[in-house]
């Protein structure tokens, strides 16, 4: 009996030991899927990422959203380019968003996303991005992750040094890459009359603090140069904006050589508080222009495009204390302000050193008139007078700098393909890490704000060759995630990007995900062609126009049998998705539709225009796998000849009487 007890105890002990081993194995097991440095980028299935990362799509014209640290692609937000997947630019409601003074422009080259800020910190409300080609700025609403507004920029060509914001998002700026004759001047002049006829321009767009709506508050006319990038002052330098400019040679051909002649170009410092005063005093000139201003309403689920006709222009030559030029070596690209707002970093892409300017010294230089002559009437500040110091031998081809929360800066080096970490105050290089392939921009979450979250850095690289499996002549461009929490930067992940990643932004997920809209309330839908219930579904003929008020809900359309449509009619399918549940979009497609499909969110109405050209039977169906009976979600449209007398009729669920069937 006693021995038996003892044995029992033994078994219990063995079992307990085995259980202990099992548990210790388990805890290792969760890490074993990715370990070492890679485990830092591993986000287990079912877990959220820490940061949202908004990455420009470059020539795709769109913006992508990734999770960090996993590098998982969450969404591609259509902005300047049409997107048949989402019906963007194809539905009647979204077409006006791509309207410009040049008409419908269904693409652009999207470069620099910038999150809205409050008190110099990213606030997760909106993200702005510039269209480089047909100069535009878009505002994306982070409640819906959709483009809410696009505004065109007059007197500009190549809106590159954009869309950066001031520390309370008072303004979002634009700066023209190409100087051109102003819109109200004769543009039909010889190209080599650049020096006489071409002007530069930077624009300040005010942003409504509640709704986010943009308005061109004023433009500042400058000498003809190329503006490249910009950043707002913050803290002590709030009220100023800094733009990098190159081609101070004013070359109009072979810029590759001719815009690299001078030893120094400029950082242009703009006192925008002064500009506001001048505007108030009526010192601005009203200029007649034409530019499109497009807004999207989540109430009517529709966009409107308005052509605006006037702006206020301030002349940098005539108005004192408005604009100063600071010499900066060799075609500066990046123009970055550190989190304290005291230091401004210029990155001359052909320079072998990086100047860091001090805002305090800049103010003193202005007060002391420490000028080195002028450039077309604008005071040029003595280089040394504004200089905090130079980073010596930082690397080759410095492009762009972001900051962490410990007083360090991180600069991308295009030519020497590396990220260089240096201390802003001491200007000492602390670490360098190869990116292997030509790096363009880099990004630290909050890294251009007053409050960086210096945990990760992402490098955006243009050329990847053997990083990914070959896919023909064109390879994916690339993001590289670095852990910057320690003294040494560590590469932890490569991930591919859409289009071309220029700049990017990132914000903690908690700032954004709590505001995410789950569906649109059907009772608040103010679309003029909404169908608020299946009972209201109808088809109405109005001359050659046929309006189909159609609904979708799992798993049918109402109506799903439509007759009486004739060849040459303009048929408008106004589809309302009646679902009131998160993540249940329905698609809508018609055979032969020569624009696109629709993808309609719950509670939303979207319209597909269709002009039938052939007599026959045209199936329609849902393209988004919505339910187990998705494959049953379909219907027919009968198209009769132009002169036919088949009346309009529509139905759903009507079965013919047995005797009627032939």
């Amino acid at each position, binding site marked *: 009996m006693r021995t038996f007890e003892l*044995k029992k105890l033994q078994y219990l002990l063995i079992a307990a030991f085995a259980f202990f081993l099992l548990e210790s194995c388990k805890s290792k*097991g969760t890490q074993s899927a990715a370990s070492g440095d*890679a485990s830092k980028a591993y986000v287990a299935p079912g877990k959220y990422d820490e940061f949202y990362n908004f990455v420009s799509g470059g020539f795709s014209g769109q913006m992508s959203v990734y999770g960090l640290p996993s590098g998982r692609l969450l969404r591609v937000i259509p902005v300047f380019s049409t997107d048949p997947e989402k019906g963007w630019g194809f539905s009647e409601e979204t077409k006006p968003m791509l309207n410009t003074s040049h008409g419908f422009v269904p693409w652009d080259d999207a470069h620099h996303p910038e999150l809205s800020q409050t008190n110099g910190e990213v606030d997760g409300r909106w993200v702005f991005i510039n269209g480089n080609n047909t100069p535009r700025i878009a505002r994306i609403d982070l409640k819906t992750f959709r483009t809410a507004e696009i505004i065109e920029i007059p007197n500009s060509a190549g809106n590159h040094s954009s869309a950066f914001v001031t520390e309370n998002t008072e303004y979002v700026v634009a700066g023209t890459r190409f100087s051109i004759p102003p819109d109200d001047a004769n543009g039909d002049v010889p190209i080599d009359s650049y020096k006489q006829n071409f002007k530069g321009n930077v624009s300040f767009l005010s942003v409504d603090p509640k709704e986010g709506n943009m308005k061109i508050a004023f433009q500042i006319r400058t000498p003809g140069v190329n503006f490249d990038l910009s950043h707002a002052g913050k803290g002590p330098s709030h009220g100023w904006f800094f733009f990098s400019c190159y081609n101070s040679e004013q070359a109009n051909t072979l810029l590759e*050589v001719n815009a*690299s002649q001078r030893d120094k170009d400029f950082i242009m410092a703009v006192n925008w508080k002064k500009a506001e005063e001048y505007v108030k005093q009526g010192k601005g000139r009203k200029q007649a222009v034409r530019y499109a201003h497009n807004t999207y309403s989540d109430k009517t689920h529709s966009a409107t495009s308005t052509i605006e006709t006037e702006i206020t222009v301030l002349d940098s030559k005539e108005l004192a204390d408005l604009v100063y030029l600071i010499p900066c070596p*060799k075609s500066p690209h990046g123009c970055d302000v550190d989190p304290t707002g005291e230091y401004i970093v210029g990155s001359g892409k052909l320079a072998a050193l990086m100047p860091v300017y001090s805002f305090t010294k800049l103010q003193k230089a202005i007060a002391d008139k420490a000028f080195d002559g002028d450039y077309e009437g604008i005071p040029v500040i003595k280089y040394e007078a504004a200089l905090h110091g130079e980073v010596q031998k930082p690397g080759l081809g410095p492009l762009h700098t972001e900051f962490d929360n410990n007083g360090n800066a991180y600069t991308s080096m295009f030519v020497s*393909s590396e990220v260089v970490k240096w201390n802003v105050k001491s200007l000492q290089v602390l670490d360098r890490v*190869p990116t292997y392939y030509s790096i363009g921009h880099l990004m630290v979450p909050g890294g251009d704000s007053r409050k960086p979250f210096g945990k990760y850095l992402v490098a955006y690289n243009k*050329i990847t060759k*053997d990083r990914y499996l070959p896919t023909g002549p064109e390879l994916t461009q690339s993001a590289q995630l670095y852990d910057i929490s320690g003294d040494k930067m560590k590469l932890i992940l490569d991930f591919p990007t859409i289009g071309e990643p220029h700049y990017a932004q990132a914000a903690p997920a908690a700032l954004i995900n709590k505001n995410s809209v789950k569906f649109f309330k059907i009772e608040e839908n103010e679309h003029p062609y909404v169908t608020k219930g299946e009972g209201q579904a109808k088809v109405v003929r109005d001359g050659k126009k046929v309006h189909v008020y159609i609904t979708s809900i799992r798993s049918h359309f109402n109506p799903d049998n439509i007759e009486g449509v004739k060849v040459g009619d303009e048929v408008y399918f106004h589809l309302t998705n009646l679902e009131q549940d998160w993540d249940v979009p329905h698609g809508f497609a018609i055979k032969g539709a020569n624009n696109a499909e629709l993808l309609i969110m719950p509670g939303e109405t979207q319209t597909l225009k269709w002009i039938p050209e052939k007599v026959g039977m045209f199936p329609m169906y849902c393209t988004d796998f919505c339910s187990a009976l998705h494959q049953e979600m379909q219907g027919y449209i009968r198209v009769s000849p132009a002169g036919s007398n088949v009346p309009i009729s529509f139905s759903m669920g009507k079965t013919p009487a047995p005797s009627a069937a032939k």
Partner: protein
Amino acid sequence: MKHLIKTFAAIIIVSFIVACNNEKKDTTTSDNTTTNTGGGQESVVDDESQKDIVKIALGSKDHTTLVAALQQADYVTALSNAGPFTVFAPTNAAFEKLPAGTVDGLMKADKKLDLQNILEYHVSIGVFKEEMMQDGQKIDQANNKKITITKGADGKIKVNGTANIVAAVPASNGLVYIIDEVLLPPTGN
């Protein structure tokens, strides 16, 4: 029977230990994988595309000294990348014209910055074709110093008054001028 249970329990324990050990092994392997972050463009195997500057230098028996110097200076990746560059590539014979021991001295680890400085003085960012070069033209080099181009009446181009352009070799990422002297960067400003 009791014995059997004991043995069974022991087997279970052993198998757990083995399983844990295996995981440890896996961890080590993935650690190695993550430390190896891959190579740059110079490590891309591609015999079909036009050769870049590094591949041209690697393929030339007259440029073994330059290639060794680029490797020592860690400039192989940079010159394999997008550029565009104009590289003035001194031949082995050009390096031999330097005072005895100069090259060996520069190849020492503590002279890396000096070596980089000299090599950067042989690289312009941009493509400068011969027909675009003008007599007296100054070109900025990657080390922030200028070279001076002279063009004789016969159209022959010299760099800094003495180095002759022996040949021009177009590369996928720029242009290589083979020169017969090493360019020595001026000191100071």
